């Protein structure tokens, strides 16, 4: 039998309403991605669509008899529909095991979520056994991997991975200053451009360039790198650092800084020390090292540290929440330890690369 899409939607709602009625559930919020169906069910006007007249009258009757409401939801968020039955059973659940990606939720769902007390949707980031969502211990870093010389044309280039976060960095220079008015007679000009690839996030990005967030990250990376480059050795020149995120899974700033360090070292640019970076957070009253996307988007405190291991100095410290001083010190300590671990790794691969180049070159 050939069925119209609207007809199919109405049939589905009818069956579902019968089931919901049998289960004797209380307040139910219906989410439907067909605007037509929602309008038919919720409008108070006389029915004028004849092919679905029967279904529509039945559904309307059930909706009037029960404290149910129906809302339209964007098709992009269909996966949420699966999760909402759990909300309706609000006496039974304490822990919601799905990825609450708050930036993709439409306003109507957001309102819906806010109608519950936040305590109901508090997530458990550290299980009673002391394991995090991705199976790590609180003080465990994700696997890191660095590769030097990813691009042939750049003076220095590197790929750096922290778990699923993957960043590529390219360094051009020291080269002639492009804009003469920016030329400095005493030191080099350091520039940095950060961007995210359109395919780096879960849902494809529309406008990847020039937003405030990327401008801010560019600035942060530039300042962290400029602090360690011996700019006075390269007067009247400029150094360009380009970083692009290929896969985003939290800790982007850290991965970018680590990739930039590798690329700068590869380009043979003199530096005081390697800058390494790592983030740490505080969730479920536990300090966590190297947050991933889910932990990062929990909205808890997130401390990103840029650290010079040899000089034992901090070049970058960012935190986007408040923390008591004693806890902050713990979290910061943890992040610093992470930086040291990254530094050891970076040093290892740099040394290996140098040895390889030298041995190839021969006499």
């Amino acid at each position, binding site marked *: 039998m050939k069925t119209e899409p609207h007809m199919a939607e109405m049939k589905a709602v009818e069956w579902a309403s019968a089931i919901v009625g049998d289960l004797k559930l209380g307040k139910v919020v219906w989410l439907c991605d067909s605007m037509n169906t929602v309008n038919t069910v919720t409008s108070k006007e006389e029915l004028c669509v004849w092919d679905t007249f029967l279904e529509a009258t039945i559904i309307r009757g059930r909706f009037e008899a029960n404290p149910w409401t129906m809302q339209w939801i964007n098709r992009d968020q269909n996966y949420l529909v699966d999760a909402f039955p759990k909300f309706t059973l609000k006496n039974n659940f304490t822990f919601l095991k799905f990825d609450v990606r708050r930036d993709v939720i439409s306003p109507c769902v957001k309102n819906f979520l806010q109608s519950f007390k936040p305590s109901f949707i508090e997530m458990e980031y550290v299980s009673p056994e002391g394991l995090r969502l991705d199976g790590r211990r609180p003080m465990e870093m994700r696997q890191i991997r660095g590769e*030097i*010389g990813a691009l*042939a044309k750049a*003076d*220095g280039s590197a790929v750096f991975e922290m778990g699923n976060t993957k960043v590529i960095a390219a360094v051009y*220079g*020291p*080269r*002639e200053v492009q804009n003469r008015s920016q030329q400095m007679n005493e030191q*080099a000009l350091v520039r940095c451009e950060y961007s995210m690839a359109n395919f780096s996030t879960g849902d494809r990005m529309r406008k990847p360039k020039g937003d405030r967030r990327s401008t801010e990250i560019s600035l942060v990376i530039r300042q962290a790198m400029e602090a360690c480059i*011996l700019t006075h050795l*390269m007067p*009247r*020149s400029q150094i360009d650092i380009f970083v692009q995120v290929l896969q985003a899974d939290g800790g982007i700033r850290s991965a970018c800084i680590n990739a930039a360090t590798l690329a700068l*070292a*590869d*380009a*043979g*640019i*003199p*530096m*005081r*020390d*390697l800058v390494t970076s790592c983030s740490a957070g505080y969730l479920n009253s536990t300090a966590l090292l190297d947050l991933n996307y889910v932990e990062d988007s929990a909205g808890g405190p997130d401390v990103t540290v840029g650290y010079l*291991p*040899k*000089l034992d100095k901090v070049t970058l410290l960012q935190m986007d929440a408040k923390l008591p001083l004693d806890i902050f010190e713990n979290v910061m300590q943890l992040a610093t330890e992470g930086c040291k671990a990254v530094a050891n790794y970076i*040093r290892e691969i*740099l*040394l290996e*690369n*140098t*040895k*390889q*180049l*030298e*041995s*190839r*070159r*021969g*006499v």
Partner: protein
Amino acid sequence: MRGLQIPLNQTQKVRLQRALEKLESLSSKANSNASVTVADSIPVNYEDGILKGHGTSEFNGEITATICGIVERVNKLVYVRTLRARYKPEVGDIIVGRVIEVAPKRWRLDINSSQDAVLMLSSMNLPDGIQRRRTAVDELNMRSIFEENDVVCAEIRGLQHDGLQLQARSQKYGKLERGQLLTISPYLVKKRKQHFHHLDQYGIDLIIGRNGFIWVGEHIEARDDMVEEQVHKSEQHTTKFDITSASLEEQERTYTSLETRQNICRIANAVRVLSTLGFIISVEKILDTVSLSSSLNLGIHEMLGSEFYVLVAEKEAVQRSLTKEKR
């Protein structure tokens, strides 16, 4: 592996791996622990009066490296020799560059350094070979000597306050035509007595610029100033230039024979192979690679195939171990 983005089959992979490991073992015996990375401390055995050279700095009384490279010691001087870095100009180096701007009385050249180099009109020989003051007319005719994007060979004259100065005061310097420019990492070029090479058997000029720009072009007979001047004069005396014959002559001059072009490509590909493998570039190495390819009857394009890379690496490993045994 840097730069080597060629598909290798399993046997080729293993062979390449083995050759490279051999190279590594050969060099690691020669100088162990000489490589440093950024912020590594350099042991100096508490000697007094150590001189800190390039790539080093002092921190808490110990000398640390600021770049990745190889530690070199010359008497009391300790410095770090960089591997991958831009070209650091030294006076007297022969370089190849590309003109990026024609400015008043000077050309600006890209030479893969931290700054552009400047070639003054006054620091190069005029095409007619006469020594005289440069006039405003000469300045207006600068584009007839070099234009933007021309490839030029010159020598580093010195570092003045306003940048890097070049000079081209000989017939061997000047515009390079009818050939290929290759750019490689400058650390692969070693300073030698000779940077101009005339490869007689191929009829080719090879200029290995210290800045990592390598020119492979058709051989051009170096014209002696005096002789040419005389010829020029006698020509002017005897016959008026015929326009048609001049253009024919021009055509003949700009025509490069197919064989020469193939030779240019073959040598250029040899340089490409050597530089992607990260081997030092010298005339002998290039000629060896070229003769290897022609002895195997490989086509020019096949030189960039994976098999040839493996062969070159294996040959290099054998050669180095042989020279090692001799010593």
